[in-house]
């Protein structure tokens, strides 16, 4: 007997949603083995990873805090992916959004102006959009692939942030630490729950779920986006401009990543530092695919990914495990997801081995 993959007559709908669950279970098994190999009690470690963060109000608030940038970035990425526009540079657009909004905060903070926060948020969105406009231009004008350009621009943006906080924007009273001065109180996002760090940004993130669903499912623009992704020749035939869709998708996902960036620095951080994101923009790619490029699915997958970040921190503190464990689990999730996705189009069958097949063929 041998295992063989056999093409399904049509894609299995149930597997589209079963596959993320298989991936989650596979990752839990994988990570348990990892804990055991590292000499930790797997059950205790899983408890710290998945249960402990959810037991307190503070933990839940932190979960929302971490899910906010993931959700914003992932929904933007997912809309692009539906048109086969692969923006994998959300991390860079996030960074530029933080720089632009943060710049407004540093320049105009402390005057108690009512317009400061809205302008900061708009500056963040505009920064993310502008950063994503570069790959959009390169793709529509020179056919340069956005996977390369968006990724490379991410490193440029991180260098730019490093230059600013080491140089012109460095806090003069900061003992030479590479960071800007603290934002004034009027440049910080209002908190939602007193005593926690959960800020108003989570409202934007949650609002993006129904808005994303409506865009993709009910608007003509969303229909065009899906058509360009599913059948480019059909889009051309229907008269939908691919270039326009490339621009829309990149500007939208760039703007959302930029909003996530400014919310992060005007929320929990309150200043610009060389490292403002623990890889939210990259993790959001996993979140988007885990959520099946569907805004409602992404709501759940972003919560799961936020939990991984939180639990990973818990493991660092109480079990002295390195932060790399979080990255490993993220990697496992993606790995198992891609493997399980094969089952959408194929099924596993046990087949008699070749020699046996020859014999039965004449029966």
């Amino acid at each position: 007997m041998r295992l063989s993959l056999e093409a399904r007559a049509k894609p299995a709908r149930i597997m589209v949603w079963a596959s993320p669950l298989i991936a989650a279970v596979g990752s839990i098994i994988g990570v348990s083995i990892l804990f055991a190999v590292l000499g930790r009690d797997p059950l205790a470690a899983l408890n710290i990873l998945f249960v402990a963060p959810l037991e307190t109000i503070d933990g839940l608030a932190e979960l929302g805090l971490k899910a906010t940038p993931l959700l914003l970035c992932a929904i933007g990425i997912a809309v692009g992916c539906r048109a086969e526009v692969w923006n994998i540079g959300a991390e860079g657009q996030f960074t530029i959004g933080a720089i632009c909004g943060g710049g407004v905060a540093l320049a105009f903070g402390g005057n108690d102006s009512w317009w400061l926060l809205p302008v900061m948020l708009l500056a963040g969105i505009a920064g993310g959009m502008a950063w994503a406009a570069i790959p959009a231009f390169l793709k529509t004008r020179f056919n340069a692939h956005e996977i390369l350009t968006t990724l490379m621009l991410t490193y440029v943006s991180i260098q730019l942030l490093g230059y600013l906080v080491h140089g012109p924007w460095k806090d003069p009273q900061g003992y030479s630490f590479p960071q800007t001065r603290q934002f004034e109180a009027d440049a910080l996002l209002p908190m939602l729950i007193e005593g926690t760090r959960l800020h108003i940004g989570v409202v934007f993130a949650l609002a993006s779920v129904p808005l994303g669903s409506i865009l993709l499912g009910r608007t003509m623009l969303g229909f065009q986006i899906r058509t360009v992704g599913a059948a480019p020749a059909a889009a051309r035939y229907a008269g939908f401009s691919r270039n326009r869709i490339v621009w829309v998708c990149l500007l939208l996902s760039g703007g959302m990543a930029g909003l996530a960036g400014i919310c992060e620095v005007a929320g929990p951080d309150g200043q610009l530092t060389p490292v403002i994101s623990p890889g939210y923009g990259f993790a959001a790619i996993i979140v988007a695919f885990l959520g099946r490029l569907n805004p409602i699915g992404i709501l759940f997958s972003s919560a799961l990914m936020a939990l991984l970040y939180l639990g990973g921190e818990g493991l660092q503190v109480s079990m002295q495990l390195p932060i790399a464990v979080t990255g490993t689990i993220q990697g496992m999730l993606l790995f198992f997801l891609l493997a399980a996705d094969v089952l959408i189009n194929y099924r596993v069958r046990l087949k008699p081995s070749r020699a046996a097949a020859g014999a039965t063929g004449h029966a």
Partner: protein
Amino acid sequence: MDARSLTPRLRLSGITKRYAATLANSDISLSIAPGEIHALLGENGAGKSTLVKIIYGVVRPDAGAIAWEGAPVEIADPNAARRLGVGMVFQHFSLFESLTVAENIALGLGASETIAELTVRIEEIARRYGLAVEPTRHVHHLSVGERQRVEIVRCLLQSPRLLIMDEPTSVLTPQEAEGLFDVLRRLSDEGCSVLYISHKLEEIKALCEHATVLRAGRVVGECDPRVSTEQQMAELMIGGALPTAHRAAPLREGRPCLEVARLTLMSDEPFGTHLRDISFTLRDGEILGIAGVAGNGQKELLAALSGERRAPTAEAVRIGGVAAGLLGPAARRRLHQSFIPEERLGRGAVAEFPLRENALLTVYQAGFVRGGLIRFASVARYARDIITRFNVKAAGIDAAGSSLSGGNMQKFIVGREIGTNPRVLLAAHPTWGVDIGAAIAIRQALMDLAAAGSGVLVVSEDLAELFEISDYIAVLSGGRLSAPKRTHETTVEEVGLLMGGKMEAGAGPAVADAA
């Protein structure tokens, strides 16, 4: 001839092949005598291709036995088939454009012969069978008919005893097809059997001495095509009485609805065909048929008319009198032009979208979107209307495009394009690969639209179809269009000569451009 009474060259018994949910071949038995030209007849999806792939060793049957010259054999792969003496000319050729004919053939043979030796052998074979093939020419210079001859020579070099031809005439002019039949008859006289796959009944009557008819994976009948009528064979194929299409009496001459003036357009693809100085006028209530062998500029002309490619000037294309040459597809649709494209899934419709969304694809400007939001209730009603009016067999408006058969998908697309009452309808190969029942329904729909006053332009390779429905026929060859002629004032022979590139005096020779 007593050869017919000898051991059959090939005998299949009880061949069965099942794919996931469908039974492609069920208990098929047939036998081919030495030197016999045997037709395999059936609609798309009847199981012809699967059966042929089994004979050629591409697919292994689940059950059944194959006997070659009386001895049981198992054909493991195409190499084994070739060693037995089975040659096959596929519908789609596998030739490298940038190599010469001899180089291409050498690749396929994989023998240790030098190109020079091979060239001599190719010329010998070509002379013996009257196949015009020049071994030193590059393939990208060759017409489709010439390419097919290369494939045939490739097979003949291996002295086959059974030659399988899969829909060979779909790419040939009538004269080229006649030439092919001569070659096949000569092969038959020399004792080589031919398995000839087609759904063109007039050809089978002219060529074959025995026919096996398949329907839904089973043998539903055998006949002698020289004796049976086309009507009888068609009814065997579709398993019922043959419906017919009727053309309403032609109207008086209408006003121009689509005018093309001196359109010249360079192809944007390597090895594409440039359009040269194309002019014609389509009038309200008329059907203009454009005949021609594939690859002579049909794709390019349709893209230029639909707006997927822009013309050099606005005046080159006028729709309803409006200069439209520089407009894109959406803007041309606003001028009440519709288009049925050649490819169904992937262009005319999106495979993974439900019919409800596929209905929206091209009619979104007809009041189905308000304030950027899709009015799904109206779209659903439109989709349901199409399904009812064109008798589309589908599980409902939520069925994915990919779940429909080719013919039903095409009926849906035709319904969608006609449903907005266009003034101009462009139809590319509207019944290609569609079963007979659907083809008749589609032709009827085109004729009804013209009778209601719209202009219809049909590009097709099926001459019988064009002669049945068109008021005028023009021929596209080497990117040039002949002057449209009234259908009843021209003949299949005349159109065939034009398809072969013989334009009227003054138009100059049509040369398919290479680079």
